[in-house]
C-alpha cells in the first residue's frame, strides 16, 4: 500500500491572478510522473493537500472538474505561511499534491434532479468543479434544471469571470450573479447579499430539487433560514465544511466536529446530518 502522506510531485503549469485585489490566484498543476494523474482520480467536492516541501501543506478544494484532463487546478487565497509562499512561486516550480481527500458532492445520487448551487466568495472553487462537471455534454442530460447563485463582495472579487460569462449565455443553466455592493454603473447583474438573492431567485422547493451550498460562515448562517422558508427539507441541503487539518486522512485528530472528521467523513454533509453534530463554535 502506498504511503498516504506522500504527495505526488507536480509542476506549476500556469498561474492566473483570480481577483482584482490579487489575494487569490489559480494554479494549474501537471503531474511529473506518468500514472499519477490516474491515481489522483477525483470527484467534485473533494480536496487535496498542496504540499510545498520546506513550508508545509494546506488543504484546498479541487477547482478543476474530473471531466478536465491533463491537469488539476486550485484557486488559493493568500493567508498563511504556505499560501503566501505559493503566491510567490513561479510557473515551472516543483511541489506536491496529495489526495484526492474527503468525500464529494453526491452527484450520482442527484441524477434526474434539479440542482441549485449557492456559493459566495472564494468558496466557489469546488462549486466551479461541480458546474463544469454538470455542463459537460456527456453529463448535462442526466440532470434536471440547474440554477447557480453566486455572490462576491464586489465585481473585482468574482472568480472565474470568463466562464461565468459563457455560462450566462447558455440556456441550460440559470445564472444569478450578485455583488454585495458596487458603484460600477455598467454592472448589469444583481446587487445584494446571497441570502436575499436566494430568496427571490432560487427555485421553490419540491421533492426533486436539491441545494448545494458552500461559502463563508455568515453567508451559510443567513441562507439556511431562507432555504427553510422556500421549503427545502434538510436532507436536500448539501453543504461543504472546512477546519484546520494536517493529515487529511482522518488520523491526526484535529478537524472533528463531534464524532465526524471533516477531512474523511466530510467535507460534504447534508444539513440533516449537521443538525446532529455540534457547531463547535458555541
Amino acid at each position, binding site marked *: *500500500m502506498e*504511503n*498516504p*502522506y*506522500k*504527495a505526488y*510531485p507536480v509542476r506549476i503549469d500556469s498561474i492566473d491572478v483570480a481577483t482584482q485585489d490579487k489575494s487569490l490566484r489559480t494554479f494549474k498543476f501537471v503531474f*511529473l510522473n506518468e500514472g499519477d494523474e490516474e491515481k489522483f482520480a477525483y470527484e467534485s467536492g473533494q480536496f487535496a493537500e498542496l*504540499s*510545498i*516541501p*520546506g*513550508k*508545509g*501543506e*494546506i488543504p484546498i478544494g479541487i477547482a478543476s472538474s474530473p471531466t478536465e484532463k491533463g491537469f488539476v487546478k486550485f484557486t488559493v*487565497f493568500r*493567508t*498563511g505561511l504556505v*499560501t503566501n509562499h505559493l503566491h510567490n512561486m513561479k510557473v515551472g*516550480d*516543483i*511541489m*506536491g499534491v496529495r489526495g484526492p481527500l474527503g468525500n464529494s458532492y453526491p452527484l450520482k445520487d442527484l441524477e434526474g434532479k434539479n440542482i441549485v448551487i449557492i456559493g459566495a466568495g472564494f468558496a466557489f472553487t469546488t462549486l466551479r468543479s461541480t458546474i463544469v462537471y454538470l455542463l459537460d455534454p456527456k453529463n448535462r442530460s442526466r440532470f434536471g434544471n440547474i440554477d447557480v447563485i453566486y455572490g462576491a463582495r464586489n465585481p473585482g472579487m468574482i472568480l472565474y469571470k470568463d466562464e461565468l460569462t459563457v455560462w450566462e449565455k447558455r440556456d441550460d443553466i440559470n445564472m444569478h450573479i450578485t455583488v454585495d455592493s458596487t458603484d460600477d454603473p455598467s454592472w448589469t447583474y444583481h446587487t445584494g447579499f446571497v441570502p436575499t438573492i436566494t430568496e427571490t431567485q432560487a427555485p421553490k422547493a419540491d421533492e426533486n430539487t436539491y441545494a448545494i451550498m458552500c461559502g463563508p*460562515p455568515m453567508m451559510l448562517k443567513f441562507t439556511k433560514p431562507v432555504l427553510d422558508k422556500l421549503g427545502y427539507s434538510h436532507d436536500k441541503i448539501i453543504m461543504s465544511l*472546512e*477546519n*484546520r487539518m*494536517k*493529515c487529511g*486522512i*482522518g*488520523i*491526526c*485528530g*484535529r*478537524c*472533528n*466536529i*463531534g*464524532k465526524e472528521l471533516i477531512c*474523511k467523513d466530510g467535507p460534504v454533509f447534508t444539513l440533516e446530518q449537521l443538525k*446532529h*453534530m*455540534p457547531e*463547535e*463554535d*458555541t
Partner: protein
Amino acid sequence: MNETLSIRANIMKVINIDKEKWASGVESLTSTYRLFGPVKEDDSHNFKELKKGELPDLAYGNSKLSPKSAVFPPSEAMFTYSLDEKNENHHILNDVKKDYSPRAVLGIRPCDAKAVSLVRMNFDTKEYRDPYWMDAFEATTFVGLACDNPCSTCFCTSTGCGPFSEEGLDVLLVENGNAYIAKALTAKGEKLMDAAGFKTAGDDSAIAAKKAAAEAKITASIETDKLSEKVIMDLYDAPIWDDISFSCINCCTCTYACPTCWCFDIQDENKGLSGVRMRNWDSCMTPLFTMHGSGHNPRSQKKQRVRQRFMHKLKYFLDKYQKGIMCVGCGRCVQQCPVNIDIRTVSKKMNDYVAAS
C-alpha cells in the same frame, strides 16, 4: 516449525522463567530484538530503548509517560527533501529509511497494552494505513507485566481492562516468588520466549488467585454505564463544562501522559537547502490545534478544548467504534494534572447528566 507456529492464532503456552535466568534471557534477545523497557530516571520510570547489557527495571508501579512512544515517537521523520534547485529531485519527498527490525517492549503494564490496541483502530483503517505507526507496531512484541500492586489512582477494572488483562499483549508475565509465570499468548510471543531461551514448561494455576487479589486492591472506578445511551448533542450542550474546565491551565500534561492520545502535527524543518518533514505529538489543549488560516478558531476557549478532550475519550470514540471508552484507567492524568481535574469525576457528571426534555 516457526512457519507453522506463526499461522496459529491465539496459542497459549505457559512457561516458567526462573528470575536468575531472566538477565541472560534478555541478553539473548538483543541479537534479534531492539529492546525497550522501564528505566528509572530521578524519581520516576519511563520507557527507553535499553542499552546493551541494560535490564528493564521491573520493580516499578507504572511509567510517568506511557510506553506509546515505542511505536509512536514524540517526534519522527516522515520524509526528507532537497530545496537545492541544482539537485535533480529538488522539492520532491523522499522516504526515510527506518529501522523496523523486530523490537520488544518488556514490562509494559496491561492497561498500556490495551491502549495500543485501541489506538490501532485510528492508525489502521479500511481506507488508510498509517505506515509509520503500523510498521512499528507490527515489528513489536509486547511483553506485559501483570500488576500485583496497583496504584491508588488505577481504575482499569472499570474500563474493560484489568491488572492481569491480556488484550494487546504477546506475553504476560506474572511474578511468582523467584520466578515469572509467562503466558505466551501469540505466535510472536512464543517466538520471543524461544529467542530468550525460556523453555521450561510452567504452571499457571497460581494466576487466578493472584489476579483476584490484585483486582480486589483496585477500589477506584469510572462510571460509564449510561454513556452509550446519551445523545452527543445533549452532552455537548450540558451545563457541566464551565465547571469542569474552570481550573484547567491547558498545560497538555494529560494528553502527553495518556496512552490513548494520538493526535499529531506535521511540520517541515529546514537546515540550509535540505529538510525533513516531521510529525510531532500535538495536543487538543492548545488553541493553535484548531486555528484556521483566517484567524477564526472553533475552539478558542479552554472550555471548548476541555470538552473536546473528554467528549472524544468518553463519547465520540465510544459511539464511533462501539468498543468502549478511549481510556484504560491507567490513572496518569489523575496523578499528574496540576489542577486536579479527574476524568472519573468528569465521566460521572456525563454519565449522570439528564437533558431537560
